[in-house]
């Protein structure tokens, strides 16, 4: 059996809208991946600690509250600090086009905005996960 891809799906910050995160979690499971879902109100520290203990390939963050410019770079910074930069970071939610270049520059590999299909996301992960 092939080693399944392990993904941490997290809701950083105070945003409580988890429909998207739950849809992604199910879709990834249906695509044969192991999904560790953290639930709401994760701090960047909690996300990185969980990602390391679970030895995930990818961190997927969902945020609709506008706090992405603050929270995503923090997560990436912590991954760097703890020598875990090889964990890929992807994100989704309400993230304005204007903010995307800077986030990608900071290290977010892909950003999936409203209308993105779960099939797209699965494909991206399969094509890009570092093994």
């Amino acid at each position: 059996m092939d080693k399944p891809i392990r993904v941490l799906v997290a809701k950083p910050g105070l945003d409580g809208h988890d429909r998207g995160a739950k849809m992604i979690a199910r879709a990834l499971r249906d695509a044969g991946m192991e999904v560790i879902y953290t639930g709401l109100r994760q701090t960047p520290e909690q996300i990185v600690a969980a990602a390391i203990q679970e030895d995930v390939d990818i961190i997927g963050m969902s945020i609709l509250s506008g706090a992405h410019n603050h929270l995503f770079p923090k997560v990436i910074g912590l991954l760097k600090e703890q020598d875990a930069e090889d964990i890929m970071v992807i994100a989704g939610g309400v993230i304005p086009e204007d903010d995307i270049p800077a986030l990608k520059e900071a290290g977010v590999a892909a950003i999936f905005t409203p209308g993105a299909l779960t099939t797209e996301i699965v494909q991206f992960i399969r094509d890009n996960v570092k093994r």
Partner: protein
Amino acid sequence: MELINKMLDGDKRACARLISIVENDEKESEKLIKTIYKHTGKAHIIGITGPPGAGKSTLTDKYVKLLRKSDYKVGVIAVDPTSPYTGGAILGDRIRMNDLALDPGVFIRSMGTRGYLGGLAKATRNAVKILDASGCDYIIIETVGVGQSEVDIVKAADTVVLVMVPGLGDDIQSIKAGIMEIGDLFVVNKSDIFGAQRTATEINMMLDMSQDMDRRPPVVMVTANQNKNIEQMEQEIQKHYQYLVDNGLLEERRKKNIKRELLELVEEELKKLVIRETENNGELDSMTESLFNKETDPFTLRDVLLSRIK
């Protein structure tokens, strides 16, 4: 390996990496376990099992927090079922243990059952060995008790805690017999719900009917999400451990598990050996064919195969 040394020092990333190896890479896994085996055997291993919805994760969270008050190092392995159709899994036990993510003295790992019969037990056992070697005082294996492989997992534990809840619609009787027999301690969770006392009574009645028990497992009532009476559960777990130690049973139990593990490893290798010998040259197929045609019988062929190994 550098990773192993880091893990022995308590480095969490190293620990996590090594657990991934035992989940995924058989050859590396063997090398790894060979190296760390002498560092294992120190932790008190607790299995927590029960039907879905019993609140095991919440209970584990509260129990770990209690242990942490005395500064013990704790490892948790939370097992969730892998979908047999897709091979994927949603591992959601961490949600109820969020506070512990940042506790330096706690390591939590989620594992899917990955559809391996018995293979899961091996991966979990090896993950436990890694946590043991890294210095955990307590290791908790938390799993859903509805399948045979889950029963196997907790057989690797020193203390097995069975968590039940009132009103899940299941009679105590309908829970798999094999699971009820392995409980060293019964916990009735959500005991603030009407019907909790009846559940406890049913468990006690069932225990009354079992003869030939050296020790009668206690029944403890808790309400995990209100952090009520977890202390009593902790005490009973301690008491059980003490009972095992005082009566030489800890050693006996662990030796039994070790012997079983050894024999399983041998069995696995032997089978592989036979298959390697007979599959490629078509011999296994022709043996099967002759059995199908009733030209011979399985016992005769068994002896033929075995005589080749001796």
